[in-house]
Protein backbone atom coordinates (compact mmCIF):
# COMPACT_ATOMS: atom_id res chain seq x y z
CA UNK A 1 0.00 0.00 0.00
CA UNK A 2 1.24 3.46 -0.78
CA UNK A 3 0.92 5.99 1.90
CA UNK A 4 1.79 9.17 0.13
CA UNK A 5 4.37 11.31 1.81
CA UNK A 6 3.08 14.44 3.47
CA UNK A 7 4.50 17.75 2.42
CA UNK A 8 7.82 17.52 4.13
CA UNK A 9 11.21 18.94 3.43
CA UNK A 10 12.34 15.84 1.51
CA UNK A 11 11.09 16.24 -2.00
CA UNK A 12 9.23 13.50 -3.80
CA UNK A 13 11.40 13.73 -6.83
CA UNK A 14 14.57 15.69 -7.37
CA UNK A 15 17.18 16.12 -10.04
CA UNK A 16 20.75 16.75 -8.98
CA UNK A 17 23.05 18.55 -11.40
CA UNK A 18 21.52 16.96 -14.47
CA UNK A 19 23.44 17.41 -17.68
CA UNK A 20 22.08 16.28 -21.00
CA UNK A 21 24.01 16.12 -24.24
CA UNK A 22 22.28 15.01 -27.41
CA UNK A 23 24.11 14.62 -30.70
CA UNK A 24 26.94 16.74 -29.32
CA UNK A 25 24.60 19.55 -28.36
CA UNK A 26 24.37 20.60 -24.76
CA UNK A 27 20.67 20.79 -23.85
CA UNK A 28 21.02 21.63 -20.19
CA UNK A 29 23.95 21.72 -17.82
CA UNK A 30 23.93 21.03 -14.09
CA UNK A 31 20.18 21.47 -13.80
CA UNK A 32 18.89 20.84 -10.30
CA UNK A 33 15.24 20.75 -9.40
CA UNK A 34 13.01 19.62 -6.56
CA UNK A 35 9.44 18.49 -6.90
CA UNK A 36 7.27 18.10 -3.83
CA UNK A 37 3.98 16.35 -3.24
CA UNK A 38 1.17 18.61 -4.39
CA UNK A 39 3.18 20.32 -7.11
CA UNK A 40 2.07 20.87 -10.65
CA UNK A 41 5.19 21.58 -12.66
CA UNK A 42 5.18 22.79 -16.21
CA UNK A 43 8.38 22.45 -18.22
CA UNK A 44 8.62 25.21 -20.80
CA UNK A 45 10.93 25.98 -23.64
CA UNK A 46 11.09 26.21 -27.43
CA UNK A 47 11.20 23.13 -29.64
CA UNK A 48 14.42 21.21 -29.25
CA UNK A 49 15.25 22.78 -25.93
CA UNK A 50 15.26 19.43 -24.18
CA UNK A 51 11.82 19.26 -22.58
CA UNK A 52 11.23 15.70 -23.63
CA UNK A 53 14.80 14.77 -22.75
CA UNK A 54 14.32 16.15 -19.26
CA UNK A 55 11.08 14.25 -18.73
CA UNK A 56 12.64 11.04 -20.02
CA UNK A 57 15.60 11.49 -17.71
CA UNK A 58 13.28 12.12 -14.75
CA UNK A 59 11.30 9.00 -15.61
CA UNK A 60 14.47 6.92 -15.79
CA UNK A 61 14.04 6.05 -19.46
CA UNK A 62 17.14 7.98 -20.44
CA UNK A 63 20.34 8.30 -18.54
CA UNK A 64 21.68 11.82 -18.10
CA UNK A 65 25.20 12.53 -19.29
CA UNK A 66 25.93 13.58 -15.77
CA UNK A 67 23.96 13.97 -12.57
CA UNK A 68 21.31 11.91 -10.83
CA UNK A 69 17.59 11.66 -10.25
CA UNK A 70 16.43 10.95 -6.72
CA UNK A 71 13.14 9.53 -5.59
CA UNK A 72 12.49 10.38 -1.94
CA UNK A 73 16.16 11.06 -1.51
CA UNK A 74 17.31 7.81 -3.09
CA UNK A 75 18.88 7.47 -6.52
CA UNK A 76 16.33 5.94 -8.90
CA UNK A 77 18.89 3.53 -10.28
CA UNK A 78 19.03 1.98 -6.80
CA UNK A 79 15.30 1.69 -6.24
CA UNK A 80 14.13 1.15 -9.81
CA UNK A 81 11.20 -1.13 -9.08
CA UNK A 82 9.92 0.92 -6.16
CA UNK A 83 10.20 4.12 -8.17
CA UNK A 84 8.43 2.67 -11.19
CA UNK A 85 5.68 1.42 -8.92
CA UNK A 86 5.09 5.06 -8.03
CA UNK A 87 5.54 6.55 -11.47
CA UNK A 88 3.25 7.08 -14.39
CA UNK A 89 4.98 8.24 -17.56
CA UNK A 90 3.07 9.27 -20.64
CA UNK A 91 5.21 10.03 -23.67
CA UNK A 92 4.74 11.21 -27.25
CA UNK A 93 3.86 7.67 -28.20
CA UNK A 94 0.65 6.39 -26.73
CA UNK A 95 1.67 2.74 -26.49
CA UNK A 96 -1.63 1.53 -27.93
CA UNK A 97 -1.58 -1.62 -30.04
CA UNK A 98 -3.68 -1.49 -33.19
CA UNK A 99 -4.36 -5.22 -33.04
CA UNK A 100 -6.14 -5.00 -29.69
CA UNK A 101 -9.43 -3.38 -28.78
CA UNK A 102 -9.64 -0.21 -26.74
CA UNK A 103 -10.65 -2.15 -23.66
CA UNK A 104 -7.92 -4.77 -24.09
CA UNK A 105 -5.35 -2.03 -24.47
CA UNK A 106 -6.47 -0.28 -21.33
CA UNK A 107 -6.71 -3.50 -19.37
CA UNK A 108 -3.21 -4.51 -20.37
CA UNK A 109 -1.81 -1.13 -19.42
CA UNK A 110 -3.58 -1.19 -16.08
CA UNK A 111 -2.61 -4.76 -15.26
CA UNK A 112 1.00 -4.23 -16.31
CA UNK A 113 1.32 -1.48 -13.76
CA UNK A 114 -0.47 -3.51 -11.12
CA UNK A 115 -3.75 -1.60 -11.22
CA UNK A 116 -7.26 -2.90 -10.93
CA UNK A 117 -8.88 -3.70 -14.27
CA UNK A 118 -12.45 -4.10 -13.03
CA UNK A 119 -13.73 -0.64 -13.78
CA UNK A 120 -11.96 -0.13 -17.06
CA UNK A 121 -15.23 0.53 -18.89
CA UNK A 122 -15.99 3.38 -16.53
CA UNK A 123 -12.61 4.93 -17.28
CA UNK A 124 -13.18 4.59 -20.99
CA UNK A 125 -16.47 6.43 -20.42
CA UNK A 126 -14.58 9.22 -18.69
CA UNK A 127 -12.47 9.79 -21.77
CA UNK A 128 -15.56 9.60 -24.02
CA UNK A 129 -14.74 6.25 -25.54
CA UNK A 130 -17.80 4.33 -24.43
CA UNK A 131 -19.15 2.48 -27.42
CA UNK A 132 -15.65 2.05 -28.83
CA UNK A 133 -14.46 -0.44 -26.23
CA UNK A 134 -14.72 -3.37 -28.63
CA UNK A 135 -13.32 -1.63 -31.70
CA UNK A 136 -9.81 -2.52 -32.70
CA UNK A 137 -7.56 0.38 -31.93
CA UNK A 138 -6.33 0.39 -35.53
CA UNK A 139 -9.80 1.60 -36.53
CA UNK A 140 -9.62 4.53 -34.12
CA UNK A 141 -8.06 7.94 -34.62
CA UNK A 142 -4.82 9.26 -33.16
CA UNK A 143 -6.72 11.37 -30.65
CA UNK A 144 -8.67 8.32 -29.55
CA UNK A 145 -5.42 6.38 -29.13
CA UNK A 146 -4.15 9.05 -26.82
CA UNK A 147 -7.37 8.99 -24.88
CA UNK A 148 -7.13 5.23 -24.43
CA UNK A 149 -3.69 5.75 -22.98
CA UNK A 150 -4.81 8.66 -20.82
CA UNK A 151 -7.71 6.65 -19.39
CA UNK A 152 -5.08 5.02 -17.21
CA UNK A 153 -4.72 8.26 -15.28
CA UNK A 154 -8.16 7.77 -13.72
CA UNK A 155 -7.07 4.55 -12.03
CA UNK A 156 -3.45 5.37 -11.43
CA UNK A 157 -2.09 4.75 -7.98
CA UNK A 158 1.20 6.40 -8.78
CA UNK A 159 1.85 9.71 -7.03
CA UNK A 160 4.30 10.91 -9.66
CA UNK A 161 2.85 11.71 -13.06
CA UNK A 162 5.22 12.67 -15.82
CA UNK A 163 3.23 13.67 -18.88
CA UNK A 164 4.81 14.73 -22.15
CA UNK A 165 2.32 16.80 -24.15
CA UNK A 166 -0.77 15.14 -22.70
CA UNK A 167 -3.14 17.53 -24.50
CA UNK A 168 -1.97 16.82 -28.04
CA UNK A 169 -4.93 15.76 -30.23
CA UNK A 170 -7.35 16.09 -27.31
CA UNK A 171 -10.45 18.26 -27.71
CA UNK A 172 -11.30 21.24 -25.47
CA UNK A 173 -13.68 19.34 -23.26
CA UNK A 174 -11.11 16.59 -22.78
CA UNK A 175 -8.45 19.12 -21.85
CA UNK A 176 -10.72 20.65 -19.23
CA UNK A 177 -11.47 17.33 -17.58
CA UNK A 178 -7.79 16.37 -17.64
CA UNK A 179 -6.88 19.63 -15.95
CA UNK A 180 -9.48 18.94 -13.30
CA UNK A 181 -7.92 15.54 -12.79
CA UNK A 182 -4.45 17.06 -12.40
CA UNK A 183 -5.68 19.42 -9.70
CA UNK A 184 -7.38 16.57 -7.87
CA UNK A 185 -4.24 14.50 -8.12
CA UNK A 186 -2.11 17.31 -6.72
CA UNK A 187 -4.56 17.85 -3.90
CA UNK A 188 -4.41 14.17 -3.02
CA UNK A 189 -0.69 14.51 -2.51
CA UNK A 190 0.55 13.55 -5.93
CA UNK A 191 2.61 15.61 -8.30
CA UNK A 192 2.27 16.30 -12.00
CA UNK A 193 5.15 17.21 -14.27
CA UNK A 194 4.02 18.11 -17.75
CA UNK A 195 4.92 19.86 -20.95
CA UNK A 196 2.36 21.52 -23.15
CA UNK A 197 2.25 24.12 -25.87
CA UNK A 198 -1.27 25.10 -24.93
CA UNK A 199 -2.15 27.45 -22.12
CA UNK A 200 -3.59 25.83 -19.06
CA UNK A 201 -7.19 26.97 -18.67
CA UNK A 202 -8.60 25.91 -15.35
CA UNK A 203 -5.32 25.49 -13.50
CA UNK A 204 -4.49 28.90 -12.07
CA UNK A 205 -1.01 30.27 -12.79
CA UNK A 206 -0.15 30.46 -9.08
CA UNK A 207 -0.73 26.72 -8.79
CA UNK A 208 1.82 25.95 -11.46
CA UNK A 209 5.56 25.93 -10.96
CA UNK A 210 7.55 26.49 -14.10
CA UNK A 211 10.87 25.17 -15.28
CA UNK A 212 12.11 27.10 -18.29
CA UNK A 213 14.68 25.50 -20.56
CA UNK A 214 16.38 27.85 -22.94
CA UNK A 215 20.02 26.94 -22.70
CA UNK A 216 21.59 28.06 -25.90
CA UNK A 217 25.23 27.70 -26.79
Amino acid at each position, binding site marked *: *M*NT*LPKKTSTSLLSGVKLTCIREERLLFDELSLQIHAGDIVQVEGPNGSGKTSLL*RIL*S*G*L*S*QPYDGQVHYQGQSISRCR*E*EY*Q*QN*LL*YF*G*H*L*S*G*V*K*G*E*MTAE*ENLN*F*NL*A*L*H*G*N*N*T*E*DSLAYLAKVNLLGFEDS*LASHLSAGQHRRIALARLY*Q*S*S*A*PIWILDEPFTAIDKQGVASLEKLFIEHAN*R*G*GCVILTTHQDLISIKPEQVKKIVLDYSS
Partner: protein
Amino acid sequence: MTLEAQSVQSTENLPAQTNNPIPSSQPLSYRRAFMLVLKRDLTIAMRHKDDIINPLLFFVIVITLFPLGIGPEAQTLSRIAPGIIWVAALLATLLSLDRLFKSDHHDGSLEQMLLSPHPIFLLVLAKIFAHWLITGLPLILIAPLLAVLLHLDENSYGALVFTLLLGTPVLSLLGAVGVALTVGIKKGGVLLSLLVLPLYIPVLIFATSAIDTAALGLPYSGQLAIIAALFFGSLSLAPFAVGAALKVSTN
Protein backbone atom coordinates in the same frame (compact mmCIF):
# COMPACT_ATOMS: atom_id res chain seq x y z
CA MET B 1 -6.91 -22.83 -22.19
CA THR B 2 -4.49 -22.08 -19.43
CA LEU B 3 -4.36 -18.56 -20.73
CA GLU B 4 -8.07 -17.99 -20.18
CA ALA B 5 -7.92 -19.35 -16.67
CA GLN B 6 -5.08 -16.97 -16.07
CA SER B 7 -6.97 -13.86 -17.03
CA VAL B 8 -9.90 -14.72 -14.78
CA GLN B 9 -7.52 -15.26 -11.92
CA SER B 10 -5.76 -11.99 -12.40
CA THR B 11 -8.93 -9.98 -11.94
CA GLU B 12 -9.97 -11.99 -8.91
CA ASN B 13 -6.76 -11.68 -7.01
CA LEU B 14 -6.43 -7.94 -7.30
CA PRO B 15 -7.92 -6.17 -4.33
CA ALA B 16 -10.78 -3.90 -5.31
CA GLN B 17 -10.31 -0.63 -3.51
CA THR B 18 -12.23 1.89 -5.50
CA ASN B 19 -13.16 4.06 -2.55
CA ASN B 20 -9.65 5.04 -1.64
CA PRO B 21 -8.60 8.55 -2.55
CA ILE B 22 -5.72 7.17 -4.55
CA PRO B 23 -6.35 3.61 -5.61
CA SER B 24 -3.48 1.49 -4.46
CA SER B 25 -1.71 -1.05 -6.55
CA GLN B 26 0.41 -4.08 -6.03
CA PRO B 27 2.92 -5.32 -8.54
CA LEU B 28 1.89 -8.58 -10.14
CA SER B 29 3.62 -11.76 -9.16
CA TYR B 30 6.37 -12.85 -11.56
CA ARG B 31 4.21 -15.60 -12.98
CA ARG B 32 1.26 -13.35 -13.65
CA ALA B 33 3.36 -10.62 -15.21
CA PHE B 34 4.94 -13.23 -17.48
CA MET B 35 1.54 -14.62 -18.50
CA LEU B 36 0.13 -11.14 -19.05
CA VAL B 37 2.78 -10.24 -21.61
CA LEU B 38 2.73 -13.69 -23.18
CA LYS B 39 -1.03 -13.57 -23.64
CA ARG B 40 -0.87 -10.09 -25.12
CA ASP B 41 1.79 -11.03 -27.65
CA LEU B 42 -0.06 -14.18 -28.66
CA THR B 43 -3.30 -12.23 -29.07
CA ILE B 44 -1.58 -9.73 -31.31
CA ALA B 45 0.05 -12.47 -33.34
CA MET B 46 -3.25 -14.29 -33.80
CA ARG B 47 -4.81 -11.13 -35.20
CA HIS B 48 -1.86 -10.54 -37.45
CA LYS B 49 -1.33 -13.95 -38.96
CA ASP B 50 1.02 -12.74 -41.72
CA ASP B 51 3.76 -12.62 -39.12
CA ILE B 52 3.37 -16.34 -38.52
CA ILE B 53 2.85 -17.42 -42.10
CA ASN B 54 5.43 -15.33 -43.97
CA PRO B 55 8.60 -16.67 -42.30
CA LEU B 56 7.19 -20.15 -42.72
CA LEU B 57 6.60 -19.60 -46.44
CA PHE B 58 10.11 -18.23 -46.71
CA PHE B 59 11.44 -21.38 -45.04
CA VAL B 60 9.54 -23.59 -47.50
CA ILE B 61 10.56 -21.59 -50.57
CA VAL B 62 14.25 -21.43 -49.69
CA ILE B 63 14.31 -25.18 -49.21
CA THR B 64 12.57 -25.74 -52.56
CA LEU B 65 15.18 -23.59 -54.28
CA PHE B 66 18.08 -25.88 -53.38
CA PRO B 67 17.06 -28.94 -55.41
CA LEU B 68 16.39 -26.58 -58.32
CA GLY B 69 19.84 -25.06 -58.00
CA ILE B 70 21.80 -28.22 -57.27
CA GLY B 71 19.94 -30.91 -59.13
CA PRO B 72 17.42 -33.54 -58.11
CA GLU B 73 19.81 -36.43 -57.33
CA ALA B 74 18.55 -37.99 -54.12
CA GLN B 75 22.04 -38.87 -52.94
CA THR B 76 23.41 -35.33 -53.15
CA LEU B 77 20.29 -33.89 -51.58
CA SER B 78 20.24 -36.25 -48.65
CA ARG B 79 23.92 -35.50 -48.05
CA ILE B 80 23.32 -31.75 -47.76
CA ALA B 81 19.77 -31.83 -46.36
CA PRO B 82 20.70 -31.16 -42.69
CA GLY B 83 22.73 -28.13 -43.63
CA ILE B 84 20.05 -26.75 -45.94
CA ILE B 85 17.23 -27.19 -43.45
CA TRP B 86 19.23 -25.61 -40.65
CA VAL B 87 20.55 -22.70 -42.67
CA ALA B 88 17.01 -22.04 -43.93
CA ALA B 89 15.76 -22.19 -40.34
CA LEU B 90 18.41 -19.66 -39.29
CA LEU B 91 17.38 -17.29 -42.06
CA ALA B 92 13.66 -17.72 -41.40
CA THR B 93 14.22 -16.95 -37.72
CA LEU B 94 16.31 -13.95 -38.65
CA LEU B 95 13.53 -12.69 -40.88
CA SER B 96 10.92 -13.04 -38.18
CA LEU B 97 13.02 -11.43 -35.44
CA ASP B 98 12.06 -7.95 -36.50
CA ARG B 99 8.57 -8.24 -35.13
CA LEU B 100 9.87 -9.08 -31.66
CA PHE B 101 10.38 -5.49 -30.52
CA LYS B 102 9.99 -3.27 -33.56
CA SER B 103 6.27 -2.49 -33.45
CA ASP B 104 6.33 -2.15 -29.68
CA HIS B 105 9.16 0.30 -30.03
CA HIS B 106 7.31 2.27 -32.70
CA ASP B 107 4.07 2.71 -30.81
CA GLY B 108 5.63 3.32 -27.42
CA SER B 109 4.41 0.22 -25.62
CA LEU B 110 8.01 -0.89 -25.15
CA GLU B 111 8.66 2.22 -23.07
CA GLN B 112 5.65 1.44 -20.95
CA MET B 113 6.88 -2.10 -20.37
CA LEU B 114 10.33 -0.87 -19.38
CA LEU B 115 8.68 1.53 -16.94
CA SER B 116 6.46 -1.09 -15.37
CA PRO B 117 7.42 -2.22 -11.88
CA HIS B 118 8.59 -5.63 -13.05
CA PRO B 119 12.08 -6.94 -13.68
CA ILE B 120 12.81 -6.37 -17.35
CA PHE B 121 14.25 -9.83 -17.92
CA LEU B 122 10.89 -11.33 -17.05
CA LEU B 123 8.95 -9.32 -19.62
CA VAL B 124 11.66 -9.94 -22.18
CA LEU B 125 11.54 -13.64 -21.51
CA ALA B 126 7.77 -13.65 -22.01
CA LYS B 127 8.13 -11.84 -25.32
CA ILE B 128 10.84 -14.20 -26.52
CA PHE B 129 8.79 -17.22 -25.51
CA ALA B 130 5.81 -15.83 -27.42
CA HIS B 131 8.05 -15.22 -30.41
CA TRP B 132 9.30 -18.79 -30.31
CA LEU B 133 5.77 -20.17 -30.06
CA ILE B 134 4.77 -18.13 -33.08
CA THR B 135 7.79 -18.70 -35.31
CA GLY B 136 9.94 -21.50 -33.92
CA LEU B 137 7.25 -24.05 -33.26
CA PRO B 138 5.63 -23.95 -36.74
CA LEU B 139 9.11 -24.36 -38.19
CA ILE B 140 9.63 -27.54 -36.20
CA LEU B 141 6.26 -28.89 -37.26
CA ILE B 142 6.85 -28.34 -40.95
CA ALA B 143 10.53 -29.35 -41.06
CA PRO B 144 9.92 -33.13 -41.32
CA LEU B 145 7.75 -32.56 -44.40
CA LEU B 146 10.49 -30.57 -46.06
CA ALA B 147 13.00 -33.22 -45.06
CA VAL B 148 10.99 -35.62 -47.22
CA LEU B 149 11.50 -33.33 -50.21
CA LEU B 150 15.25 -33.40 -49.57
CA HIS B 151 15.42 -37.19 -49.11
CA LEU B 152 16.79 -36.90 -45.61
CA ASP B 153 18.03 -40.20 -44.25
CA GLU B 154 15.26 -42.05 -42.43
CA ASN B 155 17.27 -42.40 -39.25
CA SER B 156 17.71 -38.66 -39.02
CA TYR B 157 14.13 -37.51 -38.52
CA GLY B 158 14.26 -37.81 -34.76
CA ALA B 159 17.55 -35.93 -34.63
CA LEU B 160 16.14 -33.22 -36.90
CA VAL B 161 13.14 -32.61 -34.67
CA PHE B 162 15.14 -32.76 -31.44
CA THR B 163 17.85 -30.39 -32.64
CA LEU B 164 15.22 -27.94 -33.88
CA LEU B 165 13.34 -28.24 -30.60
CA LEU B 166 16.43 -27.37 -28.59
CA GLY B 167 18.09 -25.15 -31.15
CA THR B 168 15.35 -22.76 -32.29
CA PRO B 169 14.88 -21.32 -28.77
CA VAL B 170 18.60 -20.52 -28.79
CA LEU B 171 18.11 -18.73 -32.10
CA SER B 172 15.24 -16.71 -30.64
CA LEU B 173 17.18 -15.84 -27.49
CA LEU B 174 20.38 -14.79 -29.22
CA GLY B 175 18.44 -13.05 -31.95
CA ALA B 176 16.53 -11.06 -29.34
CA VAL B 177 19.82 -9.51 -28.21
CA GLY B 178 20.51 -8.40 -31.77
CA VAL B 179 17.01 -6.97 -32.27
CA ALA B 180 17.13 -5.18 -28.95
CA LEU B 181 20.38 -3.53 -30.00
CA THR B 182 19.15 -2.49 -33.45
CA VAL B 183 15.51 -1.68 -32.75
CA GLY B 184 16.14 2.05 -32.48
CA ILE B 185 18.15 2.22 -35.69
CA LYS B 186 16.38 3.16 -38.90
CA LYS B 187 17.95 0.59 -41.19
CA GLY B 188 18.54 -2.07 -38.61
CA GLY B 189 17.54 -5.06 -40.75
CA VAL B 190 20.81 -5.77 -42.54
CA LEU B 191 22.82 -4.81 -39.50
CA LEU B 192 20.83 -7.33 -37.48
CA SER B 193 21.98 -10.21 -39.66
CA LEU B 194 25.59 -9.08 -39.37
CA LEU B 195 25.32 -9.05 -35.58
CA VAL B 196 23.37 -12.24 -35.09
CA LEU B 197 24.50 -14.75 -37.72
CA PRO B 198 28.05 -15.24 -36.34
CA LEU B 199 26.51 -16.04 -32.96
CA TYR B 200 24.40 -18.76 -34.57
CA ILE B 201 27.41 -20.71 -35.83
CA PRO B 202 27.82 -23.09 -32.85
CA VAL B 203 24.16 -24.11 -32.98
CA LEU B 204 24.43 -24.73 -36.70
CA ILE B 205 27.56 -26.84 -36.33
CA PHE B 206 26.29 -29.07 -33.55
CA ALA B 207 22.77 -29.44 -34.93
CA THR B 208 23.85 -30.49 -38.41
CA SER B 209 26.45 -32.80 -36.98
CA ALA B 210 23.84 -34.45 -34.77
CA ILE B 211 21.66 -35.09 -37.82
CA ASP B 212 24.61 -36.44 -39.81
CA THR B 213 25.59 -38.71 -36.95
CA ALA B 214 22.05 -39.99 -36.68
CA ALA B 215 22.08 -40.85 -40.39
CA LEU B 216 25.02 -43.17 -39.73
CA GLY B 217 22.99 -44.85 -37.02
CA LEU B 218 25.31 -43.62 -34.28
CA PRO B 219 24.20 -42.02 -31.00
CA TYR B 220 23.96 -38.24 -31.18
CA SER B 221 23.19 -37.50 -27.55
CA GLY B 222 26.55 -35.72 -27.15
CA GLN B 223 25.67 -33.05 -29.68
CA LEU B 224 22.16 -32.75 -28.23
CA ALA B 225 23.66 -32.23 -24.78
CA ILE B 226 25.83 -29.42 -26.11
CA ILE B 227 22.85 -27.75 -27.80
CA ALA B 228 20.94 -28.12 -24.53
CA ALA B 229 23.85 -26.46 -22.73
CA LEU B 230 23.75 -23.63 -25.27
CA PHE B 231 20.03 -23.36 -24.65
CA PHE B 232 20.33 -23.09 -20.89
CA GLY B 233 23.29 -20.76 -21.17
CA SER B 234 21.47 -18.37 -23.46
CA LEU B 235 18.25 -18.74 -21.46
CA SER B 236 19.98 -17.52 -18.34
CA LEU B 237 22.13 -14.79 -19.89
CA ALA B 238 20.31 -13.45 -22.96
CA PRO B 239 17.31 -11.88 -21.16
CA PHE B 240 19.66 -9.66 -19.16
CA ALA B 241 21.59 -8.63 -22.24
CA VAL B 242 18.30 -7.91 -24.00
CA GLY B 243 17.11 -5.81 -21.07
CA ALA B 244 20.31 -3.77 -21.06
CA ALA B 245 20.16 -3.39 -24.83
CA LEU B 246 16.52 -2.24 -24.77
CA LYS B 247 17.40 0.41 -22.22
CA VAL B 248 20.06 1.70 -24.58
CA SER B 249 17.73 1.56 -27.58
CA THR B 250 14.89 3.46 -25.92
CA ASN B 251 17.26 6.01 -24.44
